[in-house]
């Protein structure tokens, strides 16, 4: 019977089973708060009956998700904005920092990939700057830029530049000489060769770099927003932790995962459209 279903269908069924079983175990593992009349004298005296901030059961999280997602864009003051607004802020920062990085990394990567001199000249700088945790730039950024919003964007910029830069350089340097020779025998100029031969040939490697970068940028924005505060999903998580609202914390953790997954899927789709088989 099971063999009549396709591989995907079987996998989907298994996923759902795992999800349901996981949620049930979670739900069952959370001890219910005892009602006040059932408490013993001792518990009453030691305060054991006071509502404790425990891990919420998944049913609470789902209820929270329903509540939040049914009105994601409400704005009731600086500490009470809908999840949609918070994610919007984060996405705005990520995408602006990311596109600025792409604007720098891809042309620079082209140059490095095409010119061994440029590669050797720039390599020491790249090797030193690349391993620096992006958050280490935050104090310097805050001091120089004097604006927390722009500093967060700068941190995204600096963390997403390296994978794109290195992958572009690697992809461009690895373009088969045969294809470059095709361009040469057709008397294409440098710019034309770059756009009609080298760019499409290196595109899969470049987009792989872009995909790694957007993943890192989304990882980093949460931490950056916890530092700079104000708005954004990272700030939201931290704020709900300060409110001891673990239901919201768990809900927002889930949202971070889902948005990251969507961003990654978008680049995976782009990768598929520009991939070619040799």
């Amino acid at each position: 019977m099971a063999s009549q279903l396709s591989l995907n269908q079987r996998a989907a069924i298994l996923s759902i089973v795992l999800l349901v079983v996981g949620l049930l175990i979670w739900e069952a593992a959370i001890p219910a708060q005892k009602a006040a009349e059932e408490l013993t004298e001792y518990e009453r005296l030691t305060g054991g009956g006071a509502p404790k901030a425990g891990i919420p059961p998944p049913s609470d999280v789902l209820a929270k998700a329903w509540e939040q997602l049914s009105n994601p864009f409400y704005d009731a003051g600086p500490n009470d904005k809908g999840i949609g607004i918070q994610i919007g802020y984060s996405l705005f920062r990520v995408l602006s920092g990311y596109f600025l990085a792409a604007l720098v990394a891809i042309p620079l990567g082209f140059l490095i990939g095409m010119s061994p001199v440029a590669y050797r000249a720039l390599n020491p700088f790249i090797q030193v700057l690349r391993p620096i945790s992006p958050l280490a730039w935050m104090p310097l950024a805050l001091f120089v830029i004097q604006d927390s919003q722009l500093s967060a964007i700068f941190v995204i910029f600096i963390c997403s530049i390296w994978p794109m830069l290195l992958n572009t350089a690697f992809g461009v340097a690895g373009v088969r000489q045969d294809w470059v020779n095709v361009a040469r025998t057709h008397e294409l100029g440098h710019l034309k060769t770059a756009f009609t031969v080298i760019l499409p040939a290196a595109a899969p490697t470049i987009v792989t770099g872009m995909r790694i970068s957007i993943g890192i940028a989304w990882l980093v924005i949460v931490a950056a927003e916890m530092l700079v505060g104000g708005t954004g999903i990272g700030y939201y998580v931290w704020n709900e932790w300060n409110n001891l609202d673990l239901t919201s914390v768990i809900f927002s953790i889930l949202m971070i995962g889902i948005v990251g997954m969507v961003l990654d899927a978008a680049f995976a789709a782009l990768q598929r459209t520009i991939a070619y088989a040799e």
Partner: protein
Amino acid sequence: MSKPYLSVENLTQQFPDGQGGTLTVFENANFGIEKGEFVVILGHSGCGKSTIMNILAGLAEPTSGVVKMDGFAVSGPSLDRGVVFQNYSLLPWLSALRNVQFGVKARHRDWSPAKVLEHSRMFLAKVGLEGDVIHRKPSQLSGGMRQRVSIARAFANHPKLLLLDEPFGALDALTRGTIQEELLKIWSGTEQTVFMITHDIDEAILLADRILLMTNGPFARVAESVDITIPRPRTRTEIVDHPNYYAIRNHLVQFLGRRSKELAGQKVEGPQRPETVRIARESAPEPEPDANPRLRAVNS
């Protein structure tokens, strides 16, 4: 004596040999090709055929010497010299049709897209590619189809000189036969000059007006130029019945099997020119293989 259309003058190519010395692939090579001629070069692997072709294409610079086409020295690649690379060199992210369009657009920058499209389709049709297949990517085509696309791309640009580096190397005998005949059909209607590398003696006899024979390297030489005295149009099945066919074939086999080695590695001073060999039915069918090879290679 007037200069041939394409003339190779005192061409020398050296490479570092990887141990600090130099490897001389060939030295002071001289030969010419007439306009409209179909010349095939035969020689053992590593003797320097591709090196010569890359220099003719302008993709590589010789250590010394010049190549002149129509009286002008070749420097850098040009649309007048079309190349069909050994490994097809189609751009894998473009469909067959777009690969041809890529070439046509580069040649005729002022043509409208519709005209480019029509011209490209016409040349794909000439090599027998029509219908849905022309919209496939190279990876979805068979080796023979890729080769045809590559030939269509080169011919569609009407280059004055067509350079083919072992174009049928990867094909099975049947496909080879078909494409060879397609190549002859397209070429015979034009004024184009063809220079082709191959390892296949029968292919060389079928296609060539003249076969250049190279000795083994290092210090390889273009030792002989063999006229193919079989009238055109030729077909695979008919040429074998021609009285000159086996005489020519034996001569080539002898050269590649024995004399290319005997003549190898000899550094000879002065400009080297291939000796012309003409095998016609009236003459002796087989030049004596015992003659002193050095004497045979003397410049004529």
